[in-house]
């Protein structure tokens, strides 16, 4: 296997369960155990009720396109071979957003706010699985 040239996550105590979930093929979202509010990116306290108790719930992996950009400039050598690529900001059905690459050869001119999107997981290395998205067929 050729050397992986892209940056990899450096998890915190708060975010480790998110990355562990991906390795098991599950997109887990941090959920307040007191008021039920889902939050992302992972953090120690619920901003709605200030509870520090949380658990992890599996997301549906469905959502809608909120906005996007298509990157043409090589900001990082690890991504040079993929240019141009689309970065999508997706509002998941659970109410939080993720930003990641939109795979599957979508054309930027065809995208609209609200376009249905689904999450796909992709193994980057033996250690890491990363979340991406594609248009719902």
């Amino acid at each position, binding site marked *: 296997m050729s050397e992986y040239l*892209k*940056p*990899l*996550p*450096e*998890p*915190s105590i708060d*975010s480790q369960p998110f990355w562990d979930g991906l390795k098991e093929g599950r997109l887990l979202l941090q959920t307040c155990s007191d008021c039920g509010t889902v939050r*992302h*990116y992972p953090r120690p306290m619920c901003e709605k009720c200030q509870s520090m108790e949380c658990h992890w719930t599996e997301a549906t992996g469905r959502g809608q396109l*909120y*906005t*996007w*950009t*298509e*990157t*043409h*400039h090589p*900001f*990082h050598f690890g*991504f040079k071979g*993929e240019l*141009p*690529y689309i*970065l999508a*900001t997706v509002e998941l059905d659970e109410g*939080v*957003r*993720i*930003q*990641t*690459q939109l795979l599957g050869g979508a054309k*930027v001119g065809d995208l*609209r*706010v609200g376009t249905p999107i689904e999450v796909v997981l992709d193994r*980057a290395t033996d250690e*890491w699985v*990363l*979340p*991406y998205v594609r248009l719902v067929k």
Partner: protein
Amino acid sequence: MANTLNGKTAITGIGETKYSRGTDKSSIGLMLEASIKAIHDAGLKPNQVDGIIPYCLGPVGEEVMTGLGLTDVRFSAQTPMGGASPVAALQCAAAVIAAGVCNHVLVVLGRRGYSDARVTTRLAAMPQFRQIAEFENPVGAFAPAQLYAPMIRRHMELYGTNPDQFAEVAVAMRNHAMLNDNAIMKSPLTVEDHHNSRMISDPYRLFDCCLESDGGTAVIVSSSEYAKDTRAPVTILGVGEGHPDSPSTITQRPDMLELGLSKAAPRVFEMAGVKHKDIDVAEIYDCFTGMVIAEIEDLGFCEKGEGGPFVEGGRIRLGGELPVNTHGGLLSQAHIAGMNHVYELVRQLRHEGGAAQVPNAQIGLVTGYGDLGDGSLAIMQRAS
């Protein structure tokens, strides 16, 4: 509360180095060169400076004190908000002067933004971008152009904002830079040049993006009591900062298009006791063309979504209703993280703007924007 800092302080001195792409000077050298110019401009001796606020990145306050030989500093701080820091530092300076802690606060920024690490490398190491680094770098999002482009793409989709309007901002800034002896980009720019420039991160093209520059800029904030006897004081009528909800990431923000500036603006206008129609000149933090449009909205010059049409028809050019970035801004003068915007507002209100002078400018504003959405705003007036 609203008028706490109104008229309590003034900018009494300004200093800048040559702005360039490439320098043989260190960051601290650029800071000290700009500082001593500002101190002399204020009619002070270095040791009369008793407060310092250096920029949040780069050489720290102790190095500035050592370099200038300051022996009686009573207050030092940083305002860590990226490009919103310089104007936020004015609030900090005004507050400590009004409280009687200091008489003269030096606000200074010096950087080798071109000659040292470029922006993408710098951001990954900054603590305020920790969540971006963990969640967004691995999938290809690194640079401000990539992080801010989705904001303006949504603005385009919701409100019909278009690339001709981005080009108008870029061309206006360039026209102003061409009038400025201390500007980096001096060749003419057309709307067509803008549209033909290479795509960086859609919809932002090369000429939508700010420069990366080397240089230093400094100002002295003094008590109004001292200022009234100086050569050309510019009074701070209102000043403040604001933070968006969920400031540490753009993606999780309830409304991605609402900047911290939208919270600061009503407070600062109220503190200043002025209306939008009183503003003769506006220096607006222009890291990207679209941010100028978004900030004009959040300042309240028009409704959200109307910023695109607002910049059309020469309104933000010299001679227009609201001349913006009369120095050429970060887009065409230099990227000194907005300290150059503070310098320019003072220059305008002193009527020392040269070929870019707004005739008889009396009141103006300067904004800061940084760290993914933090905002700051000061409204100033020429002393009568």
